[in-house]
């Protein structure tokens, strides 16, 4: 049960962190007139945050047993 709670906590953190990373002032940190491979750094940054959010959600959701599944029940009995 504790693990489930932590996973849910992780989801909340990921959501809040994702929002924080997309908003000023954090976004200003990466908003520099630098280009990597010709592409402005901020474009790289935003797409990277985006991709990380997707990957993080996929991982967390995968780790969280589905509702009503056997793993869930085992968890509940523990």
């Amino acid at each position, binding site marked *: 049960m504790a693990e489930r709670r932590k996973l*849910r906590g992780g*989801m*909340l953190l*990921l*959501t809040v962190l*994702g*929002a924080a990373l*997309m*908003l*000023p002032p954090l*976004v*200003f940190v990466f*908003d520099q007139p630098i*280009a990597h*491979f*010709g*592409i*402005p750094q*901020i*474009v790289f940054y*935003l*797409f990277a945050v*985006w*991709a990380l*959010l*997707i*990957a*993080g*959600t*996929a991982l967390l*959701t995968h780790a*969280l047993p*589905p*509702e009503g599944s056997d793993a869930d029940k085992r968890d509940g009995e523990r």
Partner: protein
Amino acid sequence: MLSADFVIATAVGYVGLLFVLAYFGDRRARVNTKSFLHSPAVYTLSISVYCTSWTFYGAVGNAARSGLEFLTIYLGPTLVFVGWWFLLRRLVRISHNQRLTSVADLLSSRFGKSNRLAVLITCIAVIGIAPYIALQLKAVTSSIQAVAGSSEFGRGSLKGIDDVGLAFGVAAAMALFTILFGTRHVDAKEQHHGVVAAIAFEAVVKLAALLAVGVFVVFVGGGFENIFSKAAEVGVVVDATNTFDSRWLTTLALSVAAIVCLPRQFQVTVVENSDENHLRVASWAFPAYMLLMSLFILPIAVFGMTTMPDGSNPDMFALTLPMAFGQDALAMFAFIGGFSSATSMIILESIALSIMVSNHIVMPLILRLSPAGSGDGQGVTSLLLIARRFSIVLILSLGFFYFFFTRDSDALAPIGLISFTAIAQFFPAVIAALFWRDASLKAATAAIAAGFVFWVWCSFLPSFESVSPQVAMLLDRGPWGISWLRPEAMFGLDGIDPLAHAAFWSLLVNVLTLTLGSLLTTQSALERIQASVFVDVFKRGQATRGNFVRGSATANDLFFVAERVLGERRAAALFETEARDSGVDPDMLEPSPEFIGRLERELAGSIGAASAHVMLSKVVSGSDVSLEEMMQMADETQQVIEYSQQLEKTSAELRSTARQLEDANAQLRELDSQKDEFLSQVSHEVRTPMTSIRSFSEILLDSDDIDVDQRQHFVSTIHQESLRLTKLLDEILDLSALERGERTWDNVPIDAEAALDRALAVCEALLRQRGMKVELGERAQPTMVEGDADRLCQVFINLISNAVKYNDSDKPVIRITSTIKAGSYVAKIADNGPGIAKRERKLIFEKFWRGPGGMADQGGAGLGLAISRQIVARMNGALDLVPGPLPGACFRIRLAVMK
């Protein structure tokens, strides 16, 4: 070059393909509930209806005009899906439980099944979505013109038709198509598997088309790096200096609200959801889809700006770039992709809106106008379908008119944001509905209405600036010259982006009204019930899923209602299942409150919660549950707490009662055995004198030759024995009379000391006979108490004789003292006998108590102490056993001294 006829023919052919897909999808989904169509992949793709032609064409234009801003439209929904566990899961669960059909249904159901709120939301949605639909019409029109209109000979049958006519044609075709598609039948759960299948297919097409264009652009442009550096050379740069301002925040917030509240998004994400676990996949797959969609937006925009001639519409880059490079096939594919994104949006949005219109506006009207029990079985279903068809036409007409009036504004994305701002007005209420128990109907209605008014003034009205000089004037000067009411500078808030301005004011007023209003107003009983149903949806053991309609209704009436809405087959199936479950014949079915509740939810799935509630309330007489009952149901948590407290209290009570019972039982057993013992003693004692009386009287009767002396002796024995018997019986009678208070009793002033002295005198012989030493301790002065002198003397005699009788000591001692203490006369009679065992102390004053077994032979009826206590009680005093100065028992008499 592509000809207009070819383009239009392709579009029509594509629509035909979609129709076939939808048709077979529907059939397949019906037959096989485990088919591919029920998979999370199709679910995710159907959510991708979020990416409309706004994305396909508008995002490129937006990127070309204002850099990275287009990303917010996809980052906002990404956040919502990353946090799916907290919001979407709750929505889906509630929707499954409550059979929600739309966002209007959600809010109306939560706020006490209010139909007024549903009507308000439906109206706002229909008006608010009009710009969005106009956007699609504009995009399709522009794209047809872009592919076909670029050459003189390419216009073909479009010759002489301007963009308005073209848009009208597109709108009409879309209306027809949507009607054919979405209103073939009324589904109980408002799930349209066929449509969803077509939408999913379109999602794949539009993604593939945009990716194809993107890859082509990157290929032609010589890689990402080349595109950006070449663009920089001609002065085209992705300018991010002013990107992260209030507008960035606003569009991000609006897109968060839109992904939840847009009618079509609510439809695909919540209503069409067939399995909660599909959300798990969509949570990352949908953001990934959007990421892929946006991946090439920036290169296309930058490349377009670099290579295309000045003045070309950046919204159409995805189409015009391949054509500029002579790739007609790719351009055609891109056209189909853009067409897909537009059609899927229009179809789903107008289906979702038409459901809202028919369920929340038309249905209640029908219910109001037609008395219960009229109309035929098919009536409601076909009426619903007709209502939906008309509302689809209405919705597309509104979209077309908006397009007609604002056709001169050129960019796509700003139009969409106007709709987003309107729809975002629902978001505070939705959040409050899910998480805030105290949010009230009045506050929610007022909040949405107020937000809408601000939207109309600050966002909707200004969009007509270019076509209406009056509006332009209004924007410039304010109404009647009141400058602080200028739509884009309310209360003098000037100089910020108009979108941020409109969103800020409308949402601020909205949220303030909602929170303040909820704090100031009270909820109705139904609201409170629904609030706890919504807020506590994940709480365990929520068996009370609101059977709010209760009372008597015949199965016939209910069946009639169900048949009108669900159609005969489904209604019959429903009733048969119920009859089978309760094990009775379908004709004999007695509708239980649970069944009525289930029926209401089932009906709500077709016509919305408010209408279903009204409809059933009409049939179910005495349907209103008493307020008290509702209140009890309302707060489930409260109820559980109360219940457990009650349980605790009851169990504590039970424990103490059990203890008392145990004590009483022990006492009873003791008394019972005492009584048995006493009875045998009494029988024995009665029997002994009776035997002698009988035998002596028999001798006297039978023999005549008895001398006078002997006869005299016999007679006196008989007399003595009769006296003994009489005394025993007298004592018993005396006690019972005392106990029942039968005897009249006069308390008069008497001298207690005199009574004690007299008792001592009476007992002197007895004391001397046993050789008992009498210790006379401290003695009180003559003291007047209220009582009966003879009776008090009787008590003293009884106590003294008991002390003598039960004393088995070699040197028996009795100690008698009397004092005045705290206004009471207290006399103590103590002895050095065996005393009274602890467990018997409670019993000695009971009737029939005769001391422990060993003492039983001391004679006496065992009534002395009981009588004594009764007497003292009658004199308003007390007789107790107290710890005394000698090893044996010590009895204390306490009587109030007369003043």
